[in-house]
């Protein structure tokens, strides 16, 4: 039923949208599409792979990954921590829920299962490729983790919710693997700092390539293959963290309603 408040809200929003459109038509957003980028964009583009400015470049071919894990790496560490925290909070909501036995779900037809088994190999291969080439082409750890999640969702839908835990991938193990991924991100961020303590030289957190007063670098080139320094390690760690983080979420979302209600009503 449409109320007076609904009509009032709809008209207000329509006026708001029309006002924005009018302001834009007067040139409020500047030339559309924009013809130039800001100065800071020039700096990032210029320093992404710049052999002539060795102390400032990240030696990656992809500027977005260079910004995410090198120029603004600390932001991304906190972002990963937020994602981790949200998953921990979601697990906390399901505390006490035990999945003891299958309630009869056996999944879809053998045809669907056979096709899905093929994708169990193909999709993780694509995901690993996206993670490993994150510093060369569009992609990276988060995108690769999201791609790998497709396999997890397929397994839950096609084979049933009990398939993954039955093959050793329980929620607890996924949490452990996710923590290992996050640990990888943390260790990569302080890797050069730890080595610098042993060598007695200067180094910084999230240092990728050598700086003027910090001589250590992650390898940027191995036998003609561009590694992008720490970016490769970051992408791989993030890939593991995101894939298993999503796995926990989808395992929780697919918990049988009876299992949860037993706990919820008991509380």
């Amino acid at each position, binding site marked *: 039923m449409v109320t007076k408040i609904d009509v009032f809200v709809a008209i207000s929003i329509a006026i708001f949208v029309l006002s924005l459109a009018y302001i*834009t038509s007067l040139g409020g957003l500047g030339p*559309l599409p924009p013809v130039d980028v800001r100065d800071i964009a020039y700096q990032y*583009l*210029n320093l*992404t792979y*710049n052999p002539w400015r060795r102390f400032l470049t990240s030696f990656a071919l992809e500027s*977005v990954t260079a910004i995410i894990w090198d120029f603004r790496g600390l932001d991304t560490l906190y972002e990963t921590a*937020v994602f981790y925290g949200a998953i921990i909070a979601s697990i906390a909501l399901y505390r006490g829920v035990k999945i003891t036995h299958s309630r009869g779900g056996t999944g879809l037809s053998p045809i669907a299962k056979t096709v899905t088994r093929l994708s169990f190999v193909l999709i993780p291969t694509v995901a690993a490729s996206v993670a490993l080439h994150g510093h060369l082409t569009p992609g990276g750890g988060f995108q690769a983790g999201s791609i790998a999640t497709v396999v997890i969702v397929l397994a839950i839908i096609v084979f049933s919710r009990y398939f993954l835990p039955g093959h050793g991938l329980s929620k607890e193990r996924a949490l452990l693997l996710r923590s290992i991924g996050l640990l990888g991100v943390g260790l990569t961020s302080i890797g050069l700092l730890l080595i610098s303590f042993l060598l007695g030289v200067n180094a910084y957190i999230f240092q990728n390539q050598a700086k003027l007063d910090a001589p250590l670098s992650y390898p940027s080139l191995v036998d003609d293959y561009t590694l992008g320094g720490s970016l490769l390690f970051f992408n791989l760690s993030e890939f593991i963290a995101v894939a298993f983080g999503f796995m926990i979420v989808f395992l*929780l979302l697919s918990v049988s309603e009876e299992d949860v209600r037993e706990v919820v009503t008991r509380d």
Partner: protein
Amino acid sequence: MTNIAVLTAYVIVLSLYVNLGIALYGIFARPSLVKKLIAITILSDTANAFAVLVGYRWPRNALPKPPVIPELPVTRRVLEEYTSSAVDPLPQALVLTAIVIGLAITLFIAFIIIQYYRLYGTVDVRKVRRI
């Protein structure tokens, strides 16, 4: 830059405004928590698309290029061409961060809504208010 490019840019901006309006209507006017959550995701996606649009550019004498260096070895000519024609990578990086954090928040809200439904049997804010 052709007239079609300009027209397309205005159509995209107008579509984003309409998306913004739909999202705000969903958040303010729809009583279902699930629909409010869907509206929030539309709102965040619209904001992200806007951020990417802000960093877009159509150079006067070249076609726009993605922020990926296309060839190795990187010579001064390659780098100059790249910096003069690639779009701004910073909004794309910030949007990626925003997507991850937005996803984390969305997941948590979704779990809370499911839990609310289990406990009270409704996701209608008018009924929830009276509980």
